[in-house]
């Protein structure tokens, strides 16, 4: 059984992550001047809510800092503090500190106290600069309250005299005299006398008015605090006289403070005799039939506001496990539907028959269900983009560069599984862009560029994939240096002929760092080769284009979902394989006169004036020792990562189909040349080809020597 408190704690931290993201987005909107009134409120609420939650778990450092932060934000909200760029700068840094405090609280680690203290000092400065005296936080010293009451009578056993005259407000606030009397009875014996002398004539009686006074004799050894406690909520909505058995000093103000800063208090007595408004009595109740919104103008206004603000109300929160389960089931449904289709086909039922047509209908429906289910998991990349401004600030500070981050396409949607896994590569690409891409501020000024470098992060959909671009307006790749380094490391031959593009993409090879010295930023990170590997593991590609003096652009392309794939079903030496449709450029029927041997194993195909290496799939996957005759085969021109092409040779093509991607790693391990698996209509497993690996393999076999050799398992 899970500890409920641990679960709540986990929820709290999850919520903190969301609130930190909201905080940052809001502050940035304020900085850019795109904030609305609600933005300021949302920012305040984010910090406020974190403070409240932190209180539950006694995360004192977090509570304290959030309180200071919240106080300053409240001033901005109420207009006593102007949100100048300087103030917002403090807020943004405070948001980072707050994030660190949250992280430290979650991991139970310590934080940089000096940094927090500096931040608090900055807040003090802001608060002092703002003229309006801030209302004191009014924290009652915890022990004082309780001690006060314990000092009251202890051994009295004679009767307290209590006179209690409720005002109409008491009833209007849903308090009840009966309950109060019930509570008093718990303290001891009571003798109640009702004084109805103020009751008016029936004709003048306001049904919601208050006319009665209770005189209560309470025989109890309790202290006055206990009695006042009973009247706690109603004290200022009534006239209350408590006469102790022995006359003694009246205790003004009633505050009960418990452990943990708990505070439970009466409303302070009204300052004057100003008559309380009694709208209820004056306004006749509106007809019950009217819908609530129409009946209640306030609600109506609020509802209208809410609608214009955001479609918050139209969302529900669902446990991800349930969605995943549904996706699994739909996947099974797709397979079963395919199996059924195949059986019907095998049974020789005519295409025009009712069964076949109904089946077609079912296929469409299944497809639609699948799309709809997948759409549930689709999420905008915003959540990941939101983490980047902080990263940019940090890296900019570390490298002493001025950087502006421009983002576009935050609303681009992609499957949740993909979202979770793009943060790391993006982080690395941005870090790289600032650290290696942008020149130093001095250098930029020297060559006439704006002192502030720009890093642009863009998300967009392109041909069924999501494309993420990170570009900088820095120096571009120093090709001479990269080349030199590649030769130095033995990655390429000294006389290798490489295009500019090929040189640029050398940075993805293992152990490559182009910075003249290993900087702190890249030193603690991983190489671009690792980034490329992790991207490739997701079925993605990464490439770079660069223009000397103008900057570089990293392009990361990923499938929209990791769960389904449109594929071409092919066979090679009796084995059924799936080739991702997104990789296929065209299908060809090679003619013998277009095939040229490059060496004893590799053939190239002459294609529109160029030569493309050919890969015999069956041989390449060790299904067959021999080679297929190119003219006997069906050829597929495919394009791998970075636009590199190859021709794949198979026995036959059996059509297209959408397949549910099944991991091989879940129960086995990665298989070179194979991206994943799927279950076909006959219930058997078919393998999905890793086109990038095939293309890479072909290229490296073709004597290029620069690319990774596929690791052969023993």
């Amino acid at each position: 059984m899970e500890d409920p408190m641990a679960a709540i704690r986990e929820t709290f931290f999850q919520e903190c992550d969301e609130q930190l993201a909201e905080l940052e987005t809001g502050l940035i909107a304020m900085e850019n001047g795109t904030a609305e009134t609600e933005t300021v409120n949302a920012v305040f609420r984010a910090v406020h809510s974190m403070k409240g939650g932190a209180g539950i778990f006694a995360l004192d450092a977090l509570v304290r800092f959030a309180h200071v932060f919240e106080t300053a934000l409240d001033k901005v909200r109420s207009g006593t503090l102007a949100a100048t760029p300087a103030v917002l700068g403090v807020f943004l840094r405070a948001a980072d500190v707050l994030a660190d405090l949250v992280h430290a609280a979650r991991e139970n680690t310590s934080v940089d106290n000096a940094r927090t203290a500096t931040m608090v000092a900055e807040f003090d400065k802001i608060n002092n600069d703002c003229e309006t005296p801030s209302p004191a936080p009014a924290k009652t010293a915890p022990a004082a309250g309780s001690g006060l009451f314990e000092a009251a009578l202890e051994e009295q056993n004679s009767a307290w005299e209590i006179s209690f005259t409720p005002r109409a407000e008491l009833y209007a606030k849903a308090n009840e005299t009966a309950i109060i009397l019930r509570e008093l009875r718990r303290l001891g014996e009571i003798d109640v006398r009702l004084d109805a002398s103020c009751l008016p004539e029936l004709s003048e009686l306001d049904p919601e008015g208050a006319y009665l006074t209770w005189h209560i004799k309470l025989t109890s050894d309790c202290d006055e605090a206990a009695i006042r406690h009973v009247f706690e909520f109603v004290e200022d909505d009534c006239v209350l006289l408590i006469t102790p058995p022995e006359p003694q000093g009246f205790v003004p103000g009633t505050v009960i403070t418990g452990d943990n800063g708990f505070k439970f208090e009466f409303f302070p007595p009204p300052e004057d005799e100003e008559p309380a408004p009694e709208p209820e009595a004056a306004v006749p109740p509106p007809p019950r039939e009217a819908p609530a919104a129409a009946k209640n103008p306030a609600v109506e206004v609020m509802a209208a506001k809410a609608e214009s603000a955001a479609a918050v109300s139209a969302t529900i929160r669902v446990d991800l496990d349930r969605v995943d389960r549904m996706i699994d089931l739909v996947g099974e449904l797709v397979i079963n539907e395919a199996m059924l289709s195949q059986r019907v086909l095998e049974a020789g039922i005519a295409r025009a028959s009712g069964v076949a047509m109904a089946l077609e209908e079912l296929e469409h429906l299944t497809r639609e269900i699948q799309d709809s289910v997948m759409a549930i998991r689709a999420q905008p990349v915003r959540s990941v983009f939101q983490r980047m401004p902080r990263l940019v600030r940090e890296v900019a500070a570390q490298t002493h560069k001025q950087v502006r981050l421009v983002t576009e396409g935050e609303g681009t949607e992609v499957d949740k599984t993909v979202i979770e896994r793009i943060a790391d590569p993006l982080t690395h690409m941005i870090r790289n862009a600032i650290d290696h891409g942008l020149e130093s501020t001095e250098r930029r000024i020297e060559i006439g560029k704006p002192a502030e470098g720009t890093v642009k992060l863009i998300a967009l959909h392109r041909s069924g994939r999501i494309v993420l671009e990170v570009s900088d307006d820095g120096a571009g790749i120093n090709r001479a240096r990269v080349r030199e380094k590649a030769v130095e490391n033995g990655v390429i031959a000294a006389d290798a002929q490489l295009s500019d593009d090929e040189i640029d993409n050398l940075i993805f090879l293992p152990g490559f760092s182009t910075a003249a010295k290993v900087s702190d930023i890249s030193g603690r990170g991983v190489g671009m080769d690792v980034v490329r590997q992790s991207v490739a593991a997701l079925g993605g590609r990464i490439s770079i284009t660069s223009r000397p003096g103008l900057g570089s652009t990293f392009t990361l392309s990923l499938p929209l979902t990791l769960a389904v794939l449109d594929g071409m079903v092919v066979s090679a030496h009796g084995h059924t394989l799936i080739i991702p449709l997104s990789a296929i450029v065209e299908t060809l029927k090679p003619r013998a006169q277009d095939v040229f041997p490059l060496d004893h194993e590799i053939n190239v195909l002459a294609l529109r004036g160029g030569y493309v290496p050919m890969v015999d799939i069956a041989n390449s996957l060790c299904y067959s020792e021999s080679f297929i005759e190119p003219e006997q085969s069906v050829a597929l021109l495919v394009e791998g990562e970075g636009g590199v092409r190859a021709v794949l040779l198979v026995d036959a093509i059996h059509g297209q189909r959408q397949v549910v991607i099944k991991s091989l790693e879940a129960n086995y391990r990665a298989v070179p040349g194979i991206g994943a698996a799927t279950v076909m209509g006959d219930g058997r497993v078919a393998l999905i080809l890793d086109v990038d690996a095939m293309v890479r393999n072909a290229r490296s076999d073709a004597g290029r020597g620069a690319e990774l050799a596929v690791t052969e398992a023993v």
Partner: protein
Amino acid sequence: MSATIQADPANQAGNRELIAFRVGRQEFCINVMMVREIRGWTAATRLPRSPRYVRGVINLRGAVLPIVDLAIRLGLPASEPTARNVIIVVQIGQQQVGLLVDAVSDILTASNASIQPSPDVTSELVKTFVKGLLPVDGRMISLISLDNALPRELEAA
């Protein structure tokens, strides 16, 4: 099945329930707690560049299940599987694996004391897999560990 089955499978004092199966002419056993299900042989899809003892993968209710031919894995004479072969689906850590065996022969309860160490003369393969020997009614059953049933990650290959 054996008369030594107990009503309560929860181990009393070092007793464990084992499932015994035949591979060729030998008998092996594993802890019954590892077994998820037992099913008939279905044709597996071959995996390229995999060790010979990995027969391929099959579809187990939507999951891709690798099949390890125990005969080949244990260095015994291999034969093509037929419909009479059996796949024992076992849980090894986070993964599920199908073990191709000839037949399930017994379920038995053995105390830790009754398990004898394997003699020190054995081959590398035996050392890797056989964790003890169990004499049952004049038969010898080898208790095997499946920790190394699957090939390791690619990096180590």
